[in-house]
């Protein structure tokens, strides 16, 4: 009990006694984690955005002959069962003609007198999220072409290629930057804590000379590290929220009228808790390592 009280008191007191050092730790944790969370926030939202956009990716099967309703139904059922498929939509010749007319806009008079039958009927197959790549589309086409009635496919090759490249680049740089950012955060935080502990190494030495056990010496430092890490993480979340609110949310809403702005959201709660936990853990672990080095007895 006395011990516990002593440790808590020491932790707070020591943060007061060395404001420069604890300020440095808290500041570094805050900035580094803010960087990390803001990055996560962006990745998170870009993912949401591209997920929406990728709804347009679909495979179209042009049908040479118009199937009977029962055959059509059977096809739809079979295709829907394929793992890569989300939905199947039958576009009749009339519907295709109507769409074409709409597309021509004011020039639709050109189609006057033409029969709807000039355009083929088709099946529009929407892909599941994980299959929305060039490869996914090609594999589906491969599968579908086993049915010899399906021979004429269209799946926006050029757009898909570009989309694929973009998504790949996004994912690659995201992973790379994210991985590197995590590493940088770890390095910078542990480095800063190492320096603050280095600056207090005489304290560690004297405590050990006074007959303090390694645990007694380290406990207040660890508590301090964890506490500062947690405070830093809170500040990071706060700062990140401010950035998010004023720039992403308000800024976008004012400038854009698209759905894009509405869809931007803050980190979900579990991620926020994770950031807090990360700060605490980093503060704790970051103190542990240099302490082990300086408290050798």
């Amino acid at each position: 009990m006395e011990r516990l009280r002593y440790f808590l008191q020491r932790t707070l007191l020591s943060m007061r006694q060395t404001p420069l050092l604890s300020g440095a730790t808290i500041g570094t944790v805050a900035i580094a984690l803010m960087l990390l969370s803001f990055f996560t926030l962006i990745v998170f939202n870009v993912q949401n955005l591209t997920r929406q956009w990728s709804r347009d990716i679909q495979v179209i099967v042009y049908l040479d002959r118009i199937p009977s309703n029962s055959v059509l139904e059977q096809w739809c059922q079979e295709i829907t069962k394929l793992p890569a498929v989300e939905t199947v939509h039958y576009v009749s010749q009339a519907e295709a003609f109507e769409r074409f007319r709409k597309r021509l806009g004011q020039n639709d008079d050109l189609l006057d007198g033409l029969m709807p039958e000039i355009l083929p009927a088709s099946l529009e197959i929407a892909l599941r999220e994980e299959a929305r790549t060039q490869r996914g589309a090609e594999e589906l086409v491969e599968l579908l072409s086993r049915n010899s009635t399906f021979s004429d496919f269209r799946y926006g090759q050029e757009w898909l290629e570009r989309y694929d490249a973009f998504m790949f680049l996004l994912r690659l740089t995201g992973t790379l930057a994210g991985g590197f950012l995590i590493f940088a955060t770890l390095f910078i935080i542990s480095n800063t804590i190492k320096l603050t502990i280095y600056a207090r190494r005489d304290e560690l030495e004297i405590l050990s000379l006074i007959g303090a056990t390694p645990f007694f010496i380290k406990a207040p430092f660890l508590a301090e590290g964890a506490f500062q890490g947690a405070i830093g993480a809170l500040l990071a979340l706060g700062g990140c929220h401010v950035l998010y609110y004023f720039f992403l949310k308000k800024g976008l809403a004012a400038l854009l009228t698209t759905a894009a702005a509405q869809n931007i959201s803050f980190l979900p709660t579990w991620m926020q808790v994770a950031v807090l936990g990360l700060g605490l853990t980093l503060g704790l672990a970051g103190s542990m390592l240099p302490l082990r080095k300086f408290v050798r007895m």
Partner: protein
Amino acid sequence: MIQLCNIGKVYDNGAPALHDINLKIPSGDFVYITGSSGAGKSTLLRLLYCADRPSRGQILMGERNITRLRPRSVALLRREIGFVFQDFKLLNKRTVFENVALPLQVQGLAKQEIQSRVYQLLQYVGLEYKLQRKPLELSGGEQQRVAIARAMIVRPRVLLADEPTGNLDSDLAIEIMEMFTRINHEGTTVLLATHDRELLDRFPRRTIVLKGGHIVSDTLPQTAEETPSKEEAI
């Protein structure tokens, strides 16, 4: 009972500080360790405190061989020993009170008891009005007295004091010596490294003289009075 057998100490940089020291100090003794600068007095005391490890030989303290202790045991050993460091080794960020209270907090005593004991001891050394000062706001002699108080606060079984009166005037030195004598009468073994011939003369005790890391003489009180006069003749 402290016993040193064939103790040798060579520092990491290759500097030999002690050679083949054999020594027996019965419990409750009061022993001076003297000798010129660099003779190895501090090194000897530091070995007894496990602040350094001997390069060879064994040190027995009570029943224990303290030559190869694990960190936790070292910590426990140190709680029974008070040490006044030559360079004080006070925590500059903490107040005088906190510095002196530290060894008691390490042992987990109740706040109440810590407070009264620290206050009492600081009164003895004449610093009761400077409880809340930081060490760097004290004069050299005041810092030394804080260091002395910190060493004595635990009522140690062994007190090791390295030049504890180097920054004190003779009146204060005598007061401090009287404190040491008192604690010695209560059963604490006292080892005191000092240059101060005045103290040696005024409080004659067993005196061990080191020179270049060797023991050159080990005299009891009756002969202790001879040594200074002999050296003064040089």
